[in-house]
């Protein structure tokens, strides 16, 4: 079966040859133990090692409770690991900083600020002049499709709109690494697809390093260069899969692409296998 042969090879040709990229983020034998209220130690992450290259889009995929968020928080510097270390550009991460921008699943917008106020917050904190920060923020708000909502308060927005504001707010202070925790998890399918496309457009334009947590196999394959599959109890890396699909990616084209379909099916099979193994154990 030949699907879009000429076009995809054309697109392939446009992508520059992979250069020996340096690791932007290096996670080195990280384990995380939580003290639960039952006074028992809970091993949330066990011996995680992972290198993320500069400019790569890496997704973390795994069942609920396998420690995806925890891993993201460790890279963000919000949680310090029980053992092991996370490094950014060779420097051990000890605290949050504007070089790593989180987008939380809970949005965590500042409810007393308008959409514009939220987006301007980071640049203003970084010392960008008010007029300049405002101009940049208005452009970002327009880019995420919220033009006309600049003066709305977060409570006046829908979930998908809040998510867009959260993304714009983080993009506004130009972090080198985006840390996104199931950013589209709570959205309806239509909004989700739109935001995925928006994110991909933004990423293809300025190639930030992205660490993206998701439950959805489709989403991970569609967006990523690399999918990190995790398993639960304790949270471990099962497998890292390189997604070798041409960019720029168009959702409608990819859905028909057998290579895309194979990635999705393979990954789903692997999770099914582990579920059965879990059920038999």
């Amino acid at each position: 079966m030949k699907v879009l042969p000429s076009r995809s090879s054309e697109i392939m040709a446009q992508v520059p040859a992979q250069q020996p990229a340096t690791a932007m983020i290096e996670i080195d034998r990280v384990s995380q133990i939580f003290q639960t209220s039952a006074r028992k130690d809970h091993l949330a992450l066990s011996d995680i090692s992972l290198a993320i290259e500069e400019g790569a889009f890496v997704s973390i995929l795994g069942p609920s409770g396998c420690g995806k968020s925890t891993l993201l928080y460790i890279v963000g510097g919000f949680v310090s690991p029980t053992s092991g270390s996370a490094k950014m550009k060779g420097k051990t991460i000890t605290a949050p900083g504007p070089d790593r921008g989180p987008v939380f699943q809970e949005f965590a917008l500042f409810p007393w600020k308008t959409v514009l106020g939220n987006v301007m917050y980071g640049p203003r904190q970084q010392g960008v002049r008010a007029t300049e920060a405002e101009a940049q923020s208005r452009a970002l708000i327009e880019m995420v499709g919220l033009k006309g909502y600049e003066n709305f308060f977060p409570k006046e927005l829908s979930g998908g709109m809040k998510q867009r504001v959260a993304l714009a707010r983080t993009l506004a202070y130009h972090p080198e690494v985006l840390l996104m925790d199931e950013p589209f998890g709570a959205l309806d399918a239509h909004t989700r697809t739109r935001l995925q496309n928006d994110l991909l457009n933004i990423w293809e334009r300025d190639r930030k390093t992205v660490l993206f947590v998701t439950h959805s196999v489709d989403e991970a394959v569609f967006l990523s260069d690399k999918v990190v599959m995790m398993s639960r109890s304790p949270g471990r890396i099962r497998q890292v899969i390189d997604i070798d699909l041409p960019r720029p990616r168009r959702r409608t084209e990819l859905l028909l692409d057998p290579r895309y379909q194979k990635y999705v099916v393979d990954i789903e099979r692997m999770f099914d296998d582990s579920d059965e193994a879990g059920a038999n154990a």
Partner: protein
Amino acid sequence: MTWSAAIGRRVAPLLACVGLLAAWQVAALALKNDGFPTAFEAMRAVPAILGDKEALINILASLRRMTIGFAAAVAVSIPLGLLMGRSRAVAAFFNPLLMVIYPVPKAALMPIIMLWLGVGDIAKTLVIFLGVSLPVIYHSFEGAKAVEEKMLWSGAAMGLSSVQRLVRIVLPAAMPEILTGCRTGLVLALITMITSEMIARQSGAGNILFNALDMGQYDTVFAMIIIVGAMGIGLDAAFEKVRARLVRWSEPQFDIPLSFS
């Protein structure tokens, strides 16, 4: 429909006032008791009090003590409450202290405070300060505790220091709760103001009231109650206006009317 609802909202409190006064008038006429003047007599005494220079100075002095006590309490209690809400160590230190002070009626401390500080402005202002502090500390504490952690993380990622996070994230996020505490505090300020003047009988609105009571000028007594009550309602309404404006962002989106129609 909206027109009549708007008019209803304006007129209803007025009707309630008139109804109350009418009931008072009828009850006083029926009872014919010296200690219970009619509403008309009491109302007539109001301009007499407000026109009297001495009385006016007394009332203004009361208001000044109340303002200073309230402002000082708010200035101290908000930072303390916020710190307690965000730091376990600070909370562990101050909690036992506050738990001891909390149930004590602040007016009951008045004799001791008078013993130490005399019967002047300082003692009375201190009692007002104590009365206002506790609800403001408590609500600031609760408000700060409830601030979503991810919001603070977002701030940290933008480069806010811990002090900046307290002032620029915890404070505004907790503002609705803080202002609820301040509103309770304002009413308590008025109450402690009057009680302190009842105990340290030297000057103030409470003093006028009790002097009049001693001298059997019952219409003045009731007029003072009306004045103090009106002050309370006025202050509370003014504060509510300011509060609603400050935390417009947090007000519920849809009013669910509680109507009988």
